[in-house]
């Protein structure tokens, strides 16, 4: 049934191992407790609780986070602050990592997300419409979301390439806010792109054929060492330089997407949505090991028709899913409510702890960002959110948001945006 893939498997394995080694090196850096020199920017944040969301889920209470030059210099139990650091005494607050959103459409002013002339738009980039610090992004920041993947919509089979950026607020520029552009590819393979225009692409078979043609061209170009503007970024997907986020759902669509991108093409695929009755295929997907990005729909009642209100994230977790992440598909769910997606998933059967990871380190990891964001660890970007309580609880107010060590939102200074 599957094409022989022993070679590809070897290559994949090698890449994975080297990737793991690289990231583990990054996360195990030693703390820097030197005093803050003049000319260096930093702050010492002392909090009642610090949730690092690292691989040991270390939590400190009270705890201290030292931020130096935009990175985390120290995170651990409270201690004496090295000289030179201004101190933020916030023992009433909890610190946790800035949240990471892999499926956002709020990078631009809204409405500008689908160019639906061609079924495949591998040459398009969402960043052309990026408006740094727009209102939705500001609200996202106030909601504790600090890293976003702004992508085209799902109106076409390949929408284009999205932009990975940080939710910087006032006065942020493209260069200041962008992490990686293109950040990854956006593919849509269920329902939405099934156009009825009368041309090829009205059926799944047709769509699939168009996709495969493009993908083959990119792979051929890779083998031959050539590159064209049309295929340049798609080639990077096939060389595993860039990840691909695939909108897909249903027990039909979700595994089909996995088969194509994870198994056949061996791409760094992240399957997004997975709603309706896709959770019925959870064991198989987990066995494949393809990362799952659940949301915005998180319950299923009408499709599975067993009378239960099924929490889909819980089902994937029960089957053993690792690095499960959640999304808002903003503005379907307002971007600032990413934390609520975690709360709802926990309500319907998932573990709260795992759901906090699902909006922080897990999405960072599956998109290759975990060297920089997703957890409070030495050497990572100082994207820290201070709240009045548990991050997933709606009752917890966001008080301060640091991005790259700078205060992007402070309720006392800016008013309560959310």
């Amino acid at each position, binding site marked *: 049934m599957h094409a022989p893939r022993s070679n590809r498997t070897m290559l994949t394995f090698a890449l994975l191992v080297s990737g793991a080694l690289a990231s583990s090196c990054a996360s195990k850096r030693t703390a820097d407790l030197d005093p803050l020199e003049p000319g260096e920017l930093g702050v010492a944040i002392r909090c009642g609780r610090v949730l690092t969301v690292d*691989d040991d*889920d270390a939590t400190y209470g009270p705890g201290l986070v030292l931020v130096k030059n935009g990175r985390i210099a120290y995170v651990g139990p409270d201690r004496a602050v090295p000289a030179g650091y201004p101190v933020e005494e916030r023992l009433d607050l909890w610190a946790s990592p800035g949240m990471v959103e892999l499926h956002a459409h709020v990078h631009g002013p809204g409405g500008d997300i689908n160019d639906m002339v061609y079924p495949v738009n591998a040459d398009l980039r969402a960043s052309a419409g990026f408006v740094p610090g727009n*209102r939705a992004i500001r609200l996202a920041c106030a909601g504790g979301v600090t890293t976003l993947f702004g992508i085209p919509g799902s109106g076409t089979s390949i929408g284009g390439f999205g932009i990975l950026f940080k939710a910087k607020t006032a006065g942020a520029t493209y260069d200041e806010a962008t992490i990686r552009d293109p950040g990854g590819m956006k593919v849509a393979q269920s329902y939405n792109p099934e156009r009825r225009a009368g041309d090829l692409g009205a059926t799944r078979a047709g769509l699939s054929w168009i996709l495969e043609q493009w993908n083959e061209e990119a792979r051929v170009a890779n083998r031959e060492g050539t590159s064209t503007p049309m295929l340049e970024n798609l080639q990077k997907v096939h060389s595993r330089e860039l990840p691909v986020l695939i909108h897909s759902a249903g027990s039909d669509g979700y595994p089909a997407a996995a088969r194509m991108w994870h198994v056949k093409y061996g791409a760094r695929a992240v399957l997004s949505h997975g*709603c*309706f009755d896709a959770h019925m295929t959870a064991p198989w997907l987990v066995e494949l090991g393809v990362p799952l990005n659940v949301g*915005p*729909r*998180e*319950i*299923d*009642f*009408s499709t599975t028709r*067993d*009378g*239960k*209100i*099924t*929490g889909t994230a*819980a*089902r994937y*977790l*029960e089957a*053993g*899913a*690792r*690095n*499960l992440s959640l999304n808002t598909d903003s503005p*379907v*769910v*307002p971007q600032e*409510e990413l934390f*609520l*997606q975690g*709360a*709802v998933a*926990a*309500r*319907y*059967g*998932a*573990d*709260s*702890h*795992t759901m906090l*990871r*699902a909006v922080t*380190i*897990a999405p960072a990891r599956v998109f290759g960002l975990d060297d920089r964001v997703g957890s409070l660890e030495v050497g990572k970007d100082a994207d820290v959110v201070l709240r009045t309580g548990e991050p*997933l*609880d*709606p*009752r*917890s*107010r966001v008080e301060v948001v640091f991005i790259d060590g700078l205060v992007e939102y402070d309720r006392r200074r800016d008013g*309560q*945006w*959310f």
Partner: protein
Amino acid sequence: MIRLDLMRRLSFLAVVSCAAFPVLAQEGEKTDAPKGDAEESKDEKKKDEEERWFAILNGDVYAGTGEVLRGATLLSKNGKIHSIGYDLYVPPDAKTVDAKGYRLYPGLVAISSQGLLGNASGDFEDTIDPFSFRMVLGLGTGITTTGAGSGAVKLKRFSVDGAVLNEKIFSTFSWSANNPRGKGELREKLVVAAKFLREYREWQRKVKEEKDLPEPSKRGVDNNMLGVLQGEQTAKFVANDRDDLLGIARLAQEFGFRPVIEGCQEGWTVADELGRAGVRAIVTPRDRRTKDERQAHDGGASIENAAILHRAGVQVAITPATEGVDLGGLAGRDILHLPIEPGFAVRGGLSERAALESITIVPARLLGVSHRVGSLEVGKDCDVIVTDGDVLHYKTFVQWAVIDGKVVYDKEKELFYAHIRPRPEVAAVKKIDAGETPPVPVEPAEEGEKDEEKDGPEKKDGEKKDGDETPPKKDG
């Protein structure tokens, strides 16, 4: 509906309630007995037919008045709360629920909802569907009373009697900057009604002496207005703009009535005025609305709306963005997540106590039924929910819902949520689910457990391979 006169209605209710007592509930357990099925009917017959006792034991009672009693007993007689406390005598024939480790709260009051009474509309007493699955979901959310039409109705499952608490409490009026003439007309009606009232009271005074004095003419007087001014009806407005809110507040102060304002998005900008006017507000904390940038004043929606209004003395009831049941997949913003919405008001600075009140006693007051529901107090209806945690916490589920001293919802007996963190003693017992016909025809079972398993209420199925209780592996 058949409008039996009061006496016939009361006697009918008496007959029905007398006849209804020897019923076998699913919750006839005492403290440590497994939750399961009923006592045999013999015991029921011995019971005094005039007294129906029910008790919830060992739970932490959050009465909704600020009082918390840990490990207490709530005792109900004939559907009313008889006593709450410790060392209460519970009659041996009382039906009981063991709430050890759980909390008791007043049944929640949804100020407004869609679909929780089935497809009922108009005359709810005639159209209520007490078997609607949406009613079950509403009870599973903890809602025991809902605003319906212009009145209030209980989610009284399994019965069509006594569900309607109140039929017409609201008279809805329109006051909007988009309709200046409407504003004028409204004011005019109030003027006319107020004038009539003054004259009427004058006449009442004078007619004692001058017996022939003619009664002032009621022509042209709007009856709804009259009801509002006399305190028999509540004036309800839907308004969000600052200017409209101010207008309503001033109207209310001028004519002396306390309006209910639904929406009230920009209320935080004029909170003091609203507080002075005695406004009651129905708000959705997550309402989003951008400020009209042409205005110099503050504007737009604010997450702090509820908190600011509350501080100014405005009573705040909270309703979610969608008042109907939404099972399409996007969870967290419909009526089934009513208790999550006040959490956002707390985020905005509202106290936890006021947040709980916003979905219990305040909507009860607005609906004119606070003498019966909205808090757990002696004499009020025994409408209680037993939860596995803080009712405002996002993970809390309702384990049992009780209306008029009768269990009408058990989480483990309905398919909807039974598989989510099942109660420990239930998870241990495998049950055939009610929908499955046994492969070989079986003789009709005697009363008791067997019937229920095959033909009775839906129970969670035996599929525990899904591993609801095993913690998922941690991400690496």
